[in-house]
């Protein structure tokens, strides 16, 4: 809260205004109306029962100290196109030239005056679709107020990953970025995101995947201990398309990642997965909503969390199978490994099915490390700490296996090994 007297939530929302006059202005106006209508969430809201949004709602971002792990930047060895944001502000010098075959990349802030039809048809549209049946006020806030982001249109196979890098330079930064991605029929893109981004980060990504197209997303959310993030991914899948999204979260005082997926074309595949490791003051919430609205689609949710020293993990995952979405194959697993008795895992798995010929399974577990496996490893000469780390990585590996690229999953595996090693030293 700022030094001046705190305003009530409705007053604060009334005070917001859309300042741009470009192509997104109309969508932003609608989003602001949605936000005013919904209000900001509080812990009293059912959807925020396990995660307190107070600091995400506050006028100003709580400060977050910068953290330097003193190691090579993630994905450094991966050949990719880099787009860098520092505290949510585009850094042209640190970024690569945005030209790449089979893809058009533009900055949201650059294109306000232009007339980008494809983006206009998506900006705030998928977000709006995702507001029913559950309100997502932070996403509406983002659509209305985003200061920048990227617009990516993929027209064919893209040879190398496009990489969004989020640096954090100010301990009070408050960043709001909104990305829109459209993958045309026959196109495929791998998009990576990594870095803490800001003291407080609100990000929305809307992804429209046409028939036969593929979108792979791999993200690592920076290790600044005090950073906060609320992120939304809204994805719409056409016929025979593929969507894969994986997130690694290590550290962060508060993270809420929502992923809203609509399977609208037959024979599509959606996978959303994550590995989160927390030690101490760490609250991580994965909230997923998958809607099956077509025939013979497969969806997978694979979430693993390793928690210790009072860290808290949350999973809210839903599979909604609409009437007529026959032959749906829905899978959902959320598991946590609690390394001590102070840590907590809260899970709310849900299935809602209106078709009669579907296979859906869900499971949620939390438990301690397997003592028998630990002794087995020790009896072969593996020191206790190393044996524990090996079992932690093994536990997380089912989620890492959802990543379609060995190069990227290896990079994340190494990052996890470093994280574990840092804790045991």
């Amino acid at each position: 809260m700022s030094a001046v007297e705190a305003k009530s939530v409705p007053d604060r929302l009334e005070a917001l205004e859309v300042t741009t006059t470009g192509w997104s202005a109309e969508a932003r106006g609608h989003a602001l109306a949605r936000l005013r209508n919904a209000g900001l969430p509080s812990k009293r809201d059912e959807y925020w029962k396990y995660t307190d949004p107070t600091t995400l709602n506050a006028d100003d971002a709580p400060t977050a100290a910068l953290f330097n792990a003193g190691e090579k930047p993630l994905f450094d060895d991966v050949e990719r196109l880099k787009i860098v944001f520092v505290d949510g502000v585009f850094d042209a010098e640190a970024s690569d030239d945005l030209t790449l075959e089979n893809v058009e990349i533009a900055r949201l802030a650059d294109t306000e005056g232009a007339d980008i039809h494809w983006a206009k048809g998506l900006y705030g549209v998928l977000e709006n679709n995702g507001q029913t049946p559950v309100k997502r006020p932070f996403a509406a806030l983002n659509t209305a107020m985003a200061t920048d982001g990227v617009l990516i249109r993929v027209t064919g196979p893209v040879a190398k990953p496009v990489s969004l890098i989020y640096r954090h330079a100010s301990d009070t930064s408050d960043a709001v970025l909104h990305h829109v991605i459209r993958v045309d029929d026959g196109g495929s893109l791998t998009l990576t995101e990594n870095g803490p981004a800001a003291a407080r980060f609100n990000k929305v990504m809307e992804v429209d995947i046409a028939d036969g197209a593929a979108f792979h997303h791999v993200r690592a959310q920076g290790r600044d201990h005090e950073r906060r993030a609320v992120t939304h991914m809204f994805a719409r899948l056409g016929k025979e398309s593929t969507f894969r999204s994986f997130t690694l979260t290590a550290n962060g005082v508060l993270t809420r990642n929502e992923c809203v997926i609509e399977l609208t074309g037959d024979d599509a595949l959606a996978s959303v997965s994550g590995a989160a490791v927390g030690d101490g003051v760490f609250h991580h919430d994965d909230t997923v909503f998958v809607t099956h609205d077509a025939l013979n689609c497969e969806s997978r949710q694979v979430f693993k969390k390793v928690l210790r020293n009072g860290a808290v993990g949350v999973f809210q995952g839903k599979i909604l199978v609409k009437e007529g979405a026959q032959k749906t194959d829905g899978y959902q697993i959320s598991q946590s490994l609690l390394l001590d008795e102070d840590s907590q895992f809260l899970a709310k798995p849900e299935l809602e099915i209106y078709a009669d010929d579907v296979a859906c399974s869900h499971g949620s577990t939390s438990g301690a490390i397997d003592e028998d496996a630990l002794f087995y490893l020790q009896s072969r000469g593996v020191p206790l700490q190393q044996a524990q780390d090996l079992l932690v990585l093994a536990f997380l590996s089912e989620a890492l296996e959802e990543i379609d690229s060995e190069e990227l999953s290896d990079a994340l595996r190494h990052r996890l090994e470093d994280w574990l090693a840092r804790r045991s030293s």
Partner: protein
Amino acid sequence: MLDIKGLEVSLEEEEKQILKGVDLAIQPGEVHAIMGPNGSGKSTLSYVLSGKDGYEVTGGSATLNGDDILVMEPEERAAAGLFLAFQYPVEIPGVGNMTFLRTAVNAQRKSRGEEELSAGEFLKIIRAKAKTLEIDADMLKRPVNVGFSGGEKKRNEILQMAMLEPKMCILDETDSGLDVDAMKLVSHGVNALRDEGRSFLVITHYQRLLDHIKPDVVHIMANGRIIKSGGPELALEVENNGYADLLAEVA
């Protein structure tokens, strides 16, 4: 090699004494067998020697080449040369068999101040050893013991033993759950490792394993003590007459 004197062990969780003064001395190169009825304390002895939690040593001692192993962590005992082939090998999903073995081999080398093996060197050695135990590349790649048959699990134990080259090998009912062919294969693997500097303690219910792994000394364990020791003929006696006569003899 292994010297056990008056070893007394209770369960940590409840007031129950399992070992009531076990004496056993195994010289380098010797193969000893322990037979005994269910509940006599055979498996407990193997667990206590390898350092499993849940047991409390209330008396006596156990040394490996003069070093007190009872004060060591399980991994230190392994590095000192002790190996337990488990009766029920543990499944570890998510850890590849090869990764597991390489981690173990290199951890032991490191603790002994030896150079770690490179991936290439390791691969060469393990391929040769796996072949003699009829362990294929697929079994090396799969997660440790996950989806392995009973026989595959036991062969995998022997492969670990072959890779780690321990000095003192304890085989806890390695023959349980094995068919005749698998038992031959496992025994062959064990026999290939026999040499002057390596000792074995073979725990079994049945004499038939001892047809394949020929012991120098056979001990009969009952009610937490070794009640009789002798040559291989003792195992045959048990096979023919059961334990009743021996137990009566002592009582």
